[in-house]
């Protein structure tokens, strides 16, 4: 099923069907947010969202300008700041501590282009439906098409880091999402192939 065939204007659906307080909408947007009409969530959506709502993702999609960290998602130590581009402030950048791979000796996690998701992609405090909407919202997602979103979700090394999060400073393995990388990638691809349908709550 092609996504274009089931496009419904997100704003109307969100306000009317979803009943969510989603006000940051742009009427001119050609968004590709879809909703299932029967209100049931597809299995692929649920599988995908088990990963995307996991703290390994949410910690770096914070609501404010400070990342979170750890299994308890505490505010990142040392008041680490987002900076202008999500890569930290000039003398305390993400890469001051985080390199392109996990450091098993220090327990500092790492992946290519380690940085914070932009403010518009703040997921902290959102539920899975809202996260999915934000993800598909071109005003928020960096003007990504659904194809680009799929690529980001399934190929980006920083995103896929959540399945290989390494050990923490105590040498204890970080908690992984409850879904394997393979199942997650399949779920994302299926969900998008199914039309990127966001079920109603």
């Amino acid at each position, binding site marked *: 099923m092609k996504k274009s065939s089931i496009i419904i204007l997100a704003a109307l659906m969100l306000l009317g069907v979803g009943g969510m307080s989603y006000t940051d909408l742009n009427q001119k947007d050609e968004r590709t947010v879809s909703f299932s009409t029967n209100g049931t969530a597809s299995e692929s959506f649920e599988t995908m969202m088990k990963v995307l709502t996991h703290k390994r993702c949410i910690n770096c999609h914070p609501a404010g300008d400070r990342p979170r960290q750890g299994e308890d998602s505490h505010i990142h*130590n*040392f*008041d680490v700041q987002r900076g202008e581009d999500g890569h930290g402030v000039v003398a305390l950048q993400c890469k001051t501590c985080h390199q392109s791979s996990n450091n098993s*000796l220090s327990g500092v996690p790492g992946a290519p282009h380690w940085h914070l998701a932009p403010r518009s992609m703040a997921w902290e405090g959102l539920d899975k439906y809202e996260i999915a909407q934000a993800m598909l919202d071109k005003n928020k997602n960096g003007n990504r098409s659904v194809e680009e979103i799929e690529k980001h979700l399934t190929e980006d090394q920083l995103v896929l880091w959540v399945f290989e999060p390494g050990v923490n*400073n*105590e*040498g204890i393995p970080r908690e992984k999402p409850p879904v394997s990388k393979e199942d997650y990638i399949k779920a994302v691809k299926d969900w998008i192939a199914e039309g990127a349908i966001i079920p109603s709550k």
Partner: protein
Amino acid sequence: MSNTENSNETPKRTFSRRKFLLRASIGAGVMIGVGYFGCNPMRRSLAGMAEEAALGYDNKFDAIAWFEVTADNDIILHSPKVEMGQGIFTGMAQLVAEELGVSIGKIKVVHASSMNRPVDPRSTGGSDTISGLWVPLRELSVKMRVMLLENASKILGVATSSLSIGDGVISGGDKSISFGEIVSQATEWNEPKKITLKSKKDFKVIGKAIPRVDLEPKVMGDPIFGIDAEMPDMHYGVIVRPPKIDTVFESADFSKAESMPGVIKVVQESDFVGVIAKSKTQANLAAQAIEVKWKTNKVWEQKDIEEIIKVGKGKPVEIQKSGSPKRILNGDDVITSEYSSPIGAHAHLEPNGAVAFVEKDKAIIKISTQVPKFTRTEVAKTLDLKEEQVEIQPTFLGGGFGRRLHTPNAMQAALLSKAVGKPVHVFFSRKDEFQHDTFRPPTHHVLKGKLGENGLIEAIEHHVSSGDVAFGSVLFPQALENVFGADVGAWRGGMIQYRAIPNFSATSWRVKLPFATSWWRSLGLLANTFAIESFIDELADKAGKDPVEFRLAQIKDDERGRRLKAVIEAAAKKGEWGKKMPEGRAQGFAASTDANTPVAQVVEVSVENNQIKVHKVTCAIDPGMAINPDGIKAQCEGAIIMGISASMFEKMEVKNGALTPTIYGAYKMARMRHAPKEIDVVILEGADKPSGVGEPPLGPIGAAIANAVFKLTGKRLRDMPFKLT
């Protein structure tokens, strides 16, 4: 290869004003010494002595070498006291320069090796270096001067009365000779019997804000710390320590570790396992691969600790009493308050460790330690060597704060070195530092007070329950525990200082904890002052009196009282106590006396987003006499910030049998953003000799902040670290 303090690898810098600590040539040396430790007879009463931090000097007299004159005309002072940031090398250089009659630039201060150099019988700690050396070191310098003049006179054939001392040169008439030349030519040195010290009015170097003598190596990143020490063909060791408290070693399987890359040997001693490898990283990885079986007697939790640290538990000893406080503190109008402070970590940046090289009949230990003598004794005992076969080479300390008054790490390094016959470099991991620290003990305080009809305090009593500080330390022989009864470290700052109050008492309750607690900069001073000075504010509030006036009205009119009064007045004046504050800001006040140095502080705080912010601190201090005003200011600034950190952020807890957290960040500490933007230090000189500076300014800060927060919000902070909700 670089050595520790006498590195000859230090790069040449053309901009360098001086080459610090470069011992260009140690040719002809002159040895001169005196037992300054003999100059401090135990005259004072035990309690008074302990309070003034003069405890533990022995009366041993050793004529050992303090000075060395190089052929290049530099004067090297071999310091038995160690430099951990407190600035004593500079203060000592000032005392020497003053009496020797040379510029401070001619004096190089180095850490004395334990081999043929002065060894401090006790420790560097207790804020007593400059006060303790005030007379002996100057006397020594005068002797040095007299002897140089005498020999110059002989060599030049000019009467000493016609000679004058320039900067490292002695001249008379048209002749002159350098110190270095004198030293290389003189054959006889006669120690003068009678000497005269300069009087205060003639001081040219003492009292000046001279930049610290170790400034340049510290700014340029020179290899001066224990962890920087190297020896040829050095290996790296790691010690495996128990994961929980109240735990003993049972057995270990290190078959896997032994075959790992770079591993030289795995050593099993009676109570620990150590790995020696070619690199630090290899040693670390191998240590992780060792499977140790530990036996934990009890899995402790924080609530267990909190239950036992309570006034009423453990052993009480009354440490101060005047009048009949117990009789008076009865009835409905008695005000009772409780306060507490948590377990504190030292969190100094350079981890503990040592570089050891043990051979058949000798051992060298390079180490940042506050107790070279005890380190030597312990290493000698461990290796079954004589003390004189063990050379301790102290280095600069990457923070001391009392943590380096215990050095079992030296013994462990020595055992690892002995096992492989090579020098071994062994340092704690940060996790080990946090879990195996000798912590600042948690405390619990109960204060009772009653106001008289005059609106002043009629009776007050302070009870403090604490883990051990001095007790159990190598610095405090067990026999003394019985003499003292109460732990002098735990109750430091725990006495009532407003001695015009007719009835007061203080009682110390000793509690044994299942983990090591000990010295932490200023010992009990921070927590005890927090409790007492907060309570004094509560009583002032109850009496409807200004907290500063309230304090001033209850100070006894004796020397100690007058000095305390002076700093309170000075802080209030400079800090503009009582001025109209902008909306959302308030002032707070507190004072304390420690190491014979009274300190008073005015703080200005605000509360933003539920966070206390300290904007300004005015600190008045009376260190008796100021040797180096800039060094005193630096100590006040540092102590204030360390005190802010301890009162507002720091806290260790026992979880699942282990001390936690184990990393900076999780162990919250003050950082740049938490430091006040204004710190104003006023120095009074209320005596004719110097007293302690390193610890006293840590006293008032916690209480001053709490008092300001009360004024601002009406909320009384009773537990450190402070929380508003």
